């Protein structure tokens, strides 16, 4: 399988007056052509920072401290601003969380989508109105000829998200990063948007990184899932494997919190996500882990291979390895 993206040992820190926030702290993963990689984690797990870094949209005080982001073999972190600009929107595109604030209220939706073509093909945006109508039809916006002239405030949330999606697929990019694309929408609209992304993937062959805190959603749509905890990877595996046989204790806890049964208490994970300014020593999950043993508070687990899967837990590797 062709690798679209390869992230190696990526560390992104926020340098704040209160201290250094280790938002992403040594992350390695790949994305293959045409697949949907789901990234799941709680708020503050570093998943959105990771998304912005891959899209080349990090802004101060966020800073890449180490690592490489190889897109089709080129390290994005070593490119100039102009080289990045040519990739953004054309080869890597982004879909954001809250459609109502990610569109500019003072321009028509059609203009804002046409700007993508203007940026990469040149000429006036007016030349591309026809293409935008086609895109709108593709993302199932009703009455596209009229909607290109509508302003964001004249559209519903779901429709605005479709406009943002049409922007992201305009140039059929190799990689689309969707950061919580459905969190701000109604549940029924959520399902439609997810379905739409799936169709687009099949049609354009784009790989999609789908970021969400909604693990149940990922189990349905993702090919592979990466679980993040406190700036690190907990485990990566195929969606079926994660669902049936989770390896990491955190993944297990997440799954059991999903299995809701009547008259049974909701299985919450005790404790809360640690401070990323002074994370706990050793494995960052150990204070909340029911299976922690002595090594967990002393050493940081590496990513251990278990079959075709990757997991960061001493139960599966290291000197004091357990069952694996």
């Amino acid at each position: 399988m062709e690798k679209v993206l390869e992230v190696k040992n990526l560390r992104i820190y926020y340098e704040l007056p209160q201290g250094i926030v280790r938002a992403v702290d040594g992350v390695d993963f790949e994305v293959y052509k045409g697949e949907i990689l789901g990234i799941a984690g709680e708020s503050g797990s570093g998943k959105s920072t990771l998304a912005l870094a891959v899209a080349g949209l990090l802004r101060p005080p966020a800073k890449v401290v180490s690592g490489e982001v190889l897109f089709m073999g080129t390290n994005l972190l070593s490119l100039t601003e102009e080289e990045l600009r040519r990739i953004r929107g054309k080869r890597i595109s982004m879909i954001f969380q809250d459609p109502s604030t990610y569109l500019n209220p003072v321009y028509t939706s059609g203009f804002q989508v046409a700007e993508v073509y203007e940026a990469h093909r040149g000429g006036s945006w007016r030349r591309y109105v026809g293409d935008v109508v086609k895109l709108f039809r593709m993302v199932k916006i009703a009455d596209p000829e009229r909607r290109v002239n509508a302003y964001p405030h004249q559209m519903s949330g779901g429709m605005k998200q479709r406009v943002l999606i049409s922007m992201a697929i305009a140039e059929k990019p190799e990689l689309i990063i969707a950061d919580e694309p459905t969190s701000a929408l109604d549940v029924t609209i959520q399902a439609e948007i997810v379905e739409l992304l799936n169709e687009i993937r099949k049609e354009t062959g784009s790989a999609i990184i789908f970021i969400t805190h909604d693990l149940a959603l990922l189990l349905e749509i993702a090919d592979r899932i990466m679980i993040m905890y406190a700036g690190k990877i907990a485990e990566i595996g195929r969606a079926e494997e994660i669902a049936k046989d989770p390896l990491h204790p955190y993944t297990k806890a997440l799954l059991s919190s999903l299995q809701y049964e009547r008259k049974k208490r909701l299985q919450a994970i005790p404790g809360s996500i640690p401070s990323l300014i002074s994370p706990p020593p050793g494995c960052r999950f150990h204070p909340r882990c029911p299976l922690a043993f002595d090594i967990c508070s002393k050493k940081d687990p590496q990513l251990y291979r278990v079959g075709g899967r990757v997991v960061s837990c001493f139960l599966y590797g290291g000197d004091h390895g357990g069952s694996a």
Partner: protein
Amino acid sequence: MSLARYVGIRVAQAIPTLVGAMLVMFVLVRILPGDPARLIAGPEALEQDVQRIREQLGLNKPLYLQFVDYMSSILRGDFGTSIKYRTPVIDEIMARLPYTITLALAAEAIAVAIALPLGIYSAIKPRSKASYIASVLSLVGASTPIFWIGLIFIYVFAVSLRILPSSGADTPRHIILPAVTLALLLMGNLTRITRAAVMEALGSNHVLTAISKGLGSRVILVRHVLRNAMIPIITIMGIQVGALLGGAVITETVFAWPGIGSLLIDSLFYRDYPLAQGIILFIVFVFIVINIITDILYAYIDPRVREVLWRAGRS
């Protein structure tokens, strides 16, 4: 819904404002101690002469009747006759208006030419030298009394260096000192508001979308930052021009600039009721007009405002 209709509605809505403002100033002018009849008659006049002048001017009638008389003459297009100059009030205002307009536009032009670039630049580069200059300028502009700046300017440029005239409006060079003084006052606010508005627009999410589309940084700045930042900037510019067109009272007085502001001061000192009333009425009118213009500009910039305006106009 046409623009003309919208403006017509806005003007109609302004009538109660105008009447209210007239009532307030009518009473206020008369609360001032001092009697115009006695001022005209002179200190040695007989009481019966003063009384005669009072009757001529209609000042012996009860206040509410005076107000009714004043209103009805305004409706007939007659703004009264100046007590001091014995000419129609409207002529006096029209004679001074070109000076005030020139000074106002010159000062605002200087302020905008410096404050907008400075504010924009310091928003983009908040740690630059320009940003510190902008902060200092805002602070100085906002906290220094204008008559003091004016007097310092006169001392430095007119008295010590003798390179610029200090008062009057005889040559084009006469406008330099009052315009720069006023501009300094305006710049502080304008820079601060511009900086804040641009910073806010820069931080908004749709700018992130614009970057992720692959737009160049200049296109992003002009289309997605500055256009969105324009509303607060236009508001403050409208207020400033409105205030200046009503006569920059202190500056015009310090530099003996023959505009509306110094005329107002003059008329108040002389208890020239019709003239003072006429000028204040004019100032209120200017503010209303400027407000309508800024609202139309908002609508031009922001489609959401446009919709609300049109809807309000239709009902």
